[in-house]
């Protein structure tokens, strides 16, 4: 089924919040999933897979990288792509003088959206390289070469991000991303946790008589 970009962004944001992340992180995630979807990349699939794995993590800080290290890895060995991505975007200036290697990132496709945001802030192309895949972005467009599909739901053992690179054949843009029903249902399941149960009190007082 096809959705509007606003629907995708709104659902992604609510789903990420439902999985336990703070609202501010969820906002960034919604924007990232929208960006991927607009470039005909399966952002919702990647997010659904991620949230099933990291649902209500007891300590998100363990899944967040330490940007001071040469290699970014999680304290328990795995990285959340949302938390890694926002760190990449916040610390985009690092890419002026080094490449960053990420170890064991879940659903690494999500990181590429933040690479695009980093690119916008750097005003330079940014490239993300997996063993057999390359993603290049200039902040507005992106290209994917090689086999990137495994990186929707699998871990990336090693993903290197750096400034530079040239766009290959640019991904098509769309305003009507197609999302599989299974992923959409999964995201709705998580989003549902942000809705308060309807009680008599809530229904009578919450919206008031009209």
């Amino acid at each position: 089924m096809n959705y509007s970009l606003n629907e995708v962004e709104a659902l992604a944001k609510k789903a990420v919040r439902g999985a336990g992340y703070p609202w501010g992180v969820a906002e960034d995630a919604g924007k990232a999933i929208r960006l991927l979807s607009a470039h005909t990349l399966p952002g919702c699939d990647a997010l659904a897979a991620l949230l099933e794995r990291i649902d209500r993590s007891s300590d998100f800080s363990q899944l967040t990288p330490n940007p001071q290290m040469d290699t970014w890895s999680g304290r328990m060995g795995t990285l959340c792509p949302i938390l890694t991505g926002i760190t990449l975007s916040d610390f985009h200036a690092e890419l002026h003088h080094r490449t960053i290697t990420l170890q064991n990132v879940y659903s690494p496709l999500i990181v590429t959206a933040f690479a695009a945001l980093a690119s916008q802030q750097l005003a330079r192309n940014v490239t993300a390289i997996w063993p057999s895949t390359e993603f290049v972005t200039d902040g507005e467009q992106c290209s994917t070469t090689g086999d990137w599909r495994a990186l929707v739901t699998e871990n990336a053992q090693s993903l290197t991000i750096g400034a530079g690179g040239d766009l290959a054949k640019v991904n098509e843009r769309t305003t009507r991303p197609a999302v599989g029903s299974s992923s959409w249902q999964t995201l709705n399941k998580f989003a549902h946790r942000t809705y308060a149960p309807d009680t008599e009190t809530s229904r009578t007082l919450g919206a008031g008589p009209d």
Partner: protein
Amino acid sequence: MRLSRLGSLHQSRLSFMRILTRRMATDAWRFSRPVFDIDHNGVGHAVYAAQCDKRTYSLVAFAHDLPDDLRSDRVIAEAWDATFALFDGIPTREDITRLAKNVPLQEAGRVTESELTLSRANRSVRLWNHVIDCLSNGRQPDPDQIAQVGYLMRTTAVYGSGKFGAADRCTFSGRAEMAAPFQAEMLTVYLIRTFVRDLAEYMAVLKGGENAVPLDPVTAQQLGIGNSTGLGMAPFLINHPVLFNNWIMVREEAIARVRSIPMATQSEIDVFLELFRRSMETIKQWRSDHAIQKEKLNQLRMDLNTLEGWLPRAGLSQESPWDRLYLWAEENLSEEGQEYTASLMLEPYGALVDGLADCMASAEDHVRTIDGTMRIKKALTLIQDNYPWALKIDWGTPASTERAWYVSEEKLEPRLGNRFEEPLEEFEQPLAPARDVVALYNDMKHRDGEDTVAQFLLCYPQHRNALRRVQITEFAPYAEIWDNTVDGDMLPIDMLRCKLSFFGATRFDPRSDRWIRICMYQGAPYPEQLNEKNADHWVYPPVGS
């Protein structure tokens, strides 16, 4: 700006409705009704086409036979008197078939990128029945009843921006006629008004046959489309800080331009005085049963009487007339009167002010990327400069955080509750910027000012939402409502009224602290009458009409 002032704003020539009517007249839009297929029960569909230079927009309207006990303005309603979609182009039969299956279901259906808006409306039952009864018997309706209500139907939601599958705004915002905010929604309501008039006349014919007469055009013009708005609209101003800033900034700029005019011509003064006279009459018709609004209306009427007494001595033909008038209003009138005066002052100066409409939209549709390179000391300064009022609030009292905004499982209806009386914290929406920015400040102030916010957010990801808002205030001084939106005494209707005043609404009539009824396009020419002479000041109907 404070909520109480935002809740005292009035429509102006920069309102979205008037931006649209001026454009439609200047560009000589052509209107037609290619389909009107309604049966003897008043059930069926119609198509209203609005054609501008480059394209056509079509309102596809469905009329239903709604049992009275199912009629509700709330989000949780499941059936309505009429439902609508604004189609991008001219709908084919297949489009109409598809829309007939989905539009009457509203939130439970799906629309496509061909639809720009999805909406619904309910009758104002007493007036509807009265009007049809009169017309069917060859009589015009009672003017007092018309004046009392002001509309035959009221919309209870007008969805756009990609909701339920409709087109995202970014797919059409590049069109000149869609550049200003909410033009698709305003066009939708304009066409709905025409449909509602036509439907009422048609139902009168069904009832009275040859005896039936159409609505007198002057009476028809006095009917707007009502709107019933609840909490669904309130978070908008908080969730779109850059857009909100642009609206306020444009209005402030317009007021500043007019205040800096050194001399007014006699004809400019005449326009002002004439419209003032007309608005005194119009405001007499505004009514409300709600205690707060009754008080505000009384205050507004008193303000206008005071202003009326002052105007002969105001020296409008002398230097800096509008600046002196505004300063006088600040000293002598309530916020309602001040904002009314500010809006009215703009009226003679379309040439100076109307172009600012182009700046009211926001290129930033989305969540702004946080600038991680900002130093903590800069962020702290931004908070001190832009949130001093929030820092002064005593956040330790229960009243200061009594409210929690949330979304109910039941049809995703937005609601407002008491966090100490209901278990809502887990579901709280991020609609308390004042509280959250102060919490951010309290955690940030102990850190090394030379550190970056990127370093800070690594340890405090929960502050991303607040920090983003703080960074926005660096270039958008009006982005934040300068009030505590979770305070026990906060009035959501102030937020609703603010947004509705930018739409161009009049006759603000709160039904509670969180429901408001308004009227749109009251006094406006219908499509067949629209021209450059009447496209602008219709919101001030001539006295005696």
